């Protein structure tokens, strides 16, 4: 066997080279140990040394956010690096589904390599309460503070304000809304629904006469069911947690909202409780449903080639129980500075640059993201490229926040579970709300 041969050969070798062997052995052991123990560390030490010598001129910071898939963020970072010689930004895009887990792991390890981080609207509270991000309010310039106060849409700003302090700068926003089939509504002589009751009636009638589904949303047991249910609760004047932090789940308003959902369920596809964004929007784009609750991105999909509902789609804010009332769950991305960053000032400067008018415009025009700066909704450069943005504006000002609590993930999981049980019919609406109230009280305290 080959290894026996090697063994024999090395034995011979051992015998003939006894003397220098001991020395060699120690050298080898030393090398192995060095490699094993400092292999990874050596790279970082040399790097930080290099950084130190350069520090006087250039500050190195990183920008970690979800991969936008269209390269706009990369472009912005390149542009920043070209125009600023005091700060150099390294762009670190992460897949959207992974970002939260990765950030949490890094933050828990107090990783100093994080500087600017992009946060989904619902994460900020958690990160702030854990002490992972600094209140950005203490770092930004007075001018920029005024800009946010006067010229930003206030719903996203409010969502990033925790204990009266702004923790992250809203960068772009998003909201849930109702898409409807213009052609079908016209066919049956309906005006776009002004209240939730009207929507339900229209959905039922169109479904019955047209032989298609009436309504579709996202009711799978995951994050979006929370957004969907929050909208219904708010529409009927209910909610999950009030401004004072009291849990107000078990109310007659919420019961009415939940019963409306169950009534609408009869005109939803049978698998509605397994649908996420993708399945629900496919149903709509295929022309199989009259009303769709979705985020703002579906508008462009509906107008694209290959969509069966091209030019047949209208959009309204999520209607309330009374005319003139509208709600929408807030989404969107925000920029924060890590508490472990060694260059917080440079990071803040980069955030201010990213969130200024010029950059929000690029993000809107090339990335299709809804700006948080009010004036851009009147800007002809933006509106000519995205005619729908004007209509989104009304939706966004009415944005409502999902529960703002430190342990949002746990709270969200409880809501997901109880609402999924109620939606599937495993629990009566009354029981589900009662159980949800009780569990949230135990969890939040």
């Amino acid at each position: 066997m080959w290894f026996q041969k090697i063994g024999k050969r090395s034995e011979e070798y051992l015998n003939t080279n006894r003397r220098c062997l001991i020395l060699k052995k120690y050298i080898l052991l030393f090398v192995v140990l060095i490699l094993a123990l400092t292999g990874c560390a050596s790279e970082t030490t040399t790097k930080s040394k290099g950084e130190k010598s350069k520090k006087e001129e250039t500050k190195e910071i990183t920008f970690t956010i979800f991969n936008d898939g269209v390269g706009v963020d990369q472009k912005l970072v390149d542009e920043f690096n070209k125009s600023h010689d005091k700060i150099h930004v390294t762009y670190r895009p992460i897949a959207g589904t992974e970002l939260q887990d990765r950030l949490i792991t890094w933050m828990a390890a107090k990783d100093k390599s994080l500087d600017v981080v992009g946060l989904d609207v619902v994460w900020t509270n958690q990160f702030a309460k854990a002490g992972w991000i600094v209140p950005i309010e203490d770092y930004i310039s007075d001018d920029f503070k005024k800009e946010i106060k006067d010229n930003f849409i206030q719903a996203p700003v409010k969502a990033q304000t925790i204990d009266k302090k702004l923790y992250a700068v809203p960068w772009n926003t998003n909201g849930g809304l109702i898409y409807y089939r213009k052609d079908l509504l016209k066919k049956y002589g309906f005006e776009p629904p002004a209240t939730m009751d009207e929507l339900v009636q229209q959905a039922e009638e169109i479904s019955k006469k047209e032989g298609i589904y009436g309504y579709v949303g996202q009711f799978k047991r995951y994050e979006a069911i929370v957004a969907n249910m929050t909208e219904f609760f708010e529409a009927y004047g209910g909610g999950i947690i009030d401004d004072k932090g009291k849990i107000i789940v078990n109310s007659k308003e919420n019961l009415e909202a939940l019963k409306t959902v169950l009534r609408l369920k009869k005109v939803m596809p049978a698998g509605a409780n397994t649908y996420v964004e993708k399945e629900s929007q496919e149903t709509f784009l295929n022309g199989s449903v009259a009303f769709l609750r979705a985020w703002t991105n579906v508008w462009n999909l509906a107008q694209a080639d290959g969509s069966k509902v091209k030019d047949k789609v209208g959009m309204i804010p999520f209607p309330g129980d009374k005319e003139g009332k509208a709600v929408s769950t807030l989404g969107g991305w925000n920029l924060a500075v890590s508490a472990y960053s060694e260059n917080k000032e440079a990071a803040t400067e980069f955030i201010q640059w990213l969130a200024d008018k010029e950059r929000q415009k690029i993000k809107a025009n090339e990335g299709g993201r809804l700006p948080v700066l009010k004036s851009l909704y009147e800007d002809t450069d933006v509106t000519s490229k995205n005619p729908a943005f004007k209509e989104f504006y009304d939706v966004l000002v009415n944005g409502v926040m999902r529960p703002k609590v430190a342990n949002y993930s746990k709270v969200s999981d409880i809501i997901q579970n109880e609402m999924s049980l109620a939606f599937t019919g495993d629990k009566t609406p009354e029981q589900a709300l009662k159980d949800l109230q009780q569990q949230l009280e135990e969890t939040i305290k």
Partner: protein
Amino acid sequence: MSTLAKQKAKWGYIFVAPAVIVIFAVAIYPLLSTFYLSFTHKDLLDPTSDGFAGLSNYKKLFSDILFWESLKNTLIFVVFSVIFELIFGLGLALLMNSAIKGRGIIRAVALIPWAIPTVVSATMWLWLYNDQWGFINILLTKIGIIDHYVAWLSDPNLSLFAVIFSDVWKTTPFMALLILAGLQMVDQSIYESASVDGASKLRQFFSITLPMIKPTILVALLFRTLDSFRVFDLVYVMTSGGPGHSTEVLSLYAYKTLFKELNIGYGSALAVAIFILISIISVIYVKVLSSREEI
């Protein structure tokens, strides 16, 4: 020991050192660390919560309905998926082992499901099960088994079995591959003498094949039981534990507690519980295996 032997032994230690260091760093240290954390109140969202918790996390575990629910789901998943994988895997292995035409193609094709990354095949099954355009619905209505489309993953009574079915599809080839290896070790001359003695094919299967490949089957069962006990990606992609918690399994629950809720203390206790349960299963299998070999 002679000097030479000592020398050799020393070199042996040096050569295994990197492997031992790596195993210690990626397996033993995290395991011990999880044990330690399961006795603390550590909660990442609350920087002050670092105190020693004693057994309180484990006490909580015993009264946690969700833990028992997910344990029940996990056990159902393990039992059904492993049994069906064994039956189909055995059949497939016999087919792959027989001297029929196109055996090479069968072997290659049979391995495809196993070669697809789980996340990809889970997404594929998600669409196959779709209540509007899913192929399963189309197929079953065409051949007349069901008269209207069924939302397979929507019904709490069906969803777990729908997930089990996808798992059986995916891992049967693995089972078949292991059993095939066992089949090929069986000496052909035994069959020859059996047929000379007039034993039927069926008799040969039960009296020769099955006893001869029993150790292989047990090893394959061990692998699959442990593997399916830790099922995560399939459920995560297909149902995220829903509807309700009808498909919540232990690893998914531990993952949510650890990485979504950031409750490191309790999450570690869950992980330790999984570790202990898996150890018990392994010990039982190993006992059965070694007693077989003694005979």
